[in-house]
């Protein structure tokens, strides 16, 4: 049976869906979808056959959109997505992740919500928001947001999340209680470089096939944990900058991960205006730049935290969306790149699915 390769691109003005066959040589583009709402994350749940898109609208608030037919028709809901009449208000949804028959959504102002009916209704996971460290959470330029949700692949009671700027947390009891998981992360923007919370985690990803190895693009460094995020080790010394937003793991090789280093301090664009994705094949011990096909002159573009994804074909595809609306794709694990969409709205997120048919 033939396979369709789908790339879901969340933008400031709607969701776009690119589609190709296994060769990934030519692409069609659909969109803008979701009534041109800002879409910060989109993910396909193969178990349910549902495509989810997380976002919000300046007028109409937050919602998780869902499509049973890969984007042809949609419904949307934020029922139950509230902190109550005393607030704070929830303005938008930043992440949506299916796992173990449940759906979790991360929202702004930072908190976690769970749906057990496929996104029709939502319930607040209070244990996280009621963590004693909550008064110490503060927002960065992107707001106080819960942007990363990493379910444990085997244990439905375990989950990691990341909040900017509070840090990483883990639950081992299905969300009732949470522990900060930031030990070893060094910040350079507070008097104490090693606080328990207050960390600007940009993105976390679980290593392929592993249950305790995670990678992290931090505000100032790239880290790896081999103990379920209990401790983090800086593995970014081979990179030209510790700053970046995006982080993606290879679909099969636990030692392989991708980052996009950006200028630190000011600009936060490709270093020297030369676009590059950097890859490690050995768990962060060494990194190599991947540039073939990426612009090497005047490329003052950025890549946001959710805007890089991989597909699970062999060789794996890697996709990077810029905050100025270009989408670059590699069909050979990052060795060579091609511009497959341009002039899109600013890209918030990139995710993929392989479906039969």
């Amino acid at each position, binding site marked *: 049976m033939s396979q369709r390769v789908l790339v879901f691109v969340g933008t400031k003005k709607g969701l776009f869906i690119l589609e190709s066959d296994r060769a990934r040589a030519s692409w069609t583009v659909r969109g803008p979808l979701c*009534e041109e709402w800002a879409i910060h994350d989109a993910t396909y749940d193969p178990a349910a056959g549902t495509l989810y898109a997380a976002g919000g609208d300046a*007028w109409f608030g937050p919602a998780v959109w869902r499509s049973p037919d890969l984007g042809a028709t949609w419904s949307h809901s*934020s029922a139950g997505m509230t902190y109550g009449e*005393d607030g704070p208000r929830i303005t938008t949804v930043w992440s949506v992740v299916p796992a173990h028959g449940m759906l979790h959504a991360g929202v702004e102002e930072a908190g976690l919500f769970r749906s057990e009916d496929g996104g029709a209704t939502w319930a607040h996971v209070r244990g996280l928001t009621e963590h004693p460290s909550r008064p110490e959470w503060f927002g960065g330029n992107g707001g106080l947001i819960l942007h990363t949700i990493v379910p444990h692949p085997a244990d439905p009671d375990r989950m990691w999340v990341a909040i900017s700027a509070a840090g990483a947390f883990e639950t081992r009891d299905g969300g009732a209680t949470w522990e900060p998981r930031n030990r070893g992360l060094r910040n350079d923007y507070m008097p104490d470089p090693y606080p328990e919370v207050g960390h600007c985690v940009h993105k976390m990803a679980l290593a392929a096939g592993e249950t305790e190895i995670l990678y992290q693009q931090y505000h100032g460094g790239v880290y790896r944990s081999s103990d379920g995020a209990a401790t983090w080790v800086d593995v970014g010394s081979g990179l030209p900058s510790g700053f970046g937003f995006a982080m993606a793991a290879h679909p099969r090789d636990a030692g392989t991960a991708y980052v996009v280093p950006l200028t630190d301090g000011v600009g936060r664009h490709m270093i020297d205006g030369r676009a590059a994705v950097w890859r490690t094949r050995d768990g962060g011990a060494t990194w190599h730049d991947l540039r073939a096909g990426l612009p090497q002159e005047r490329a003052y573009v950025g890549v946001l935290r959710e805007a890089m994804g991989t597909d699970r074909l062999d060789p794996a595809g890697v996709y990077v969306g810029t905050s100025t609306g270009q989408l670059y794709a590699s069909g050979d694990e990052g060795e060579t790149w091609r511009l497959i969409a341009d002039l899109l709205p600013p890209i918030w997120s990139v995710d993929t699915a392989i479906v039969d048919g």
Partner: protein
Amino acid sequence: MTTVVLPRALIALFPGAERRVDVDASTVAGVLDVLDDEWPGMRDRLRDDVGLRPHINVFVDGERAGLGTAVQPGSTVHVIPAISGG
């Protein structure tokens, strides 16, 4: 009955919704409840538990209104998104 005039961007979210709707309600909050009965989820697009969403304006017979504002038979309620964008 009270006539409600809804914005185009809102009804685009609810297939089958119409721009002018006649409802039977006594307050603006009640109007939104009736709309939600007809098109589930519409209330959440216009208000949350705190109140009207910050960029949603409601006028009853031309006067700026809140959730508790009374509506009368024969009133016209306009739901108008604030001017914004970019």
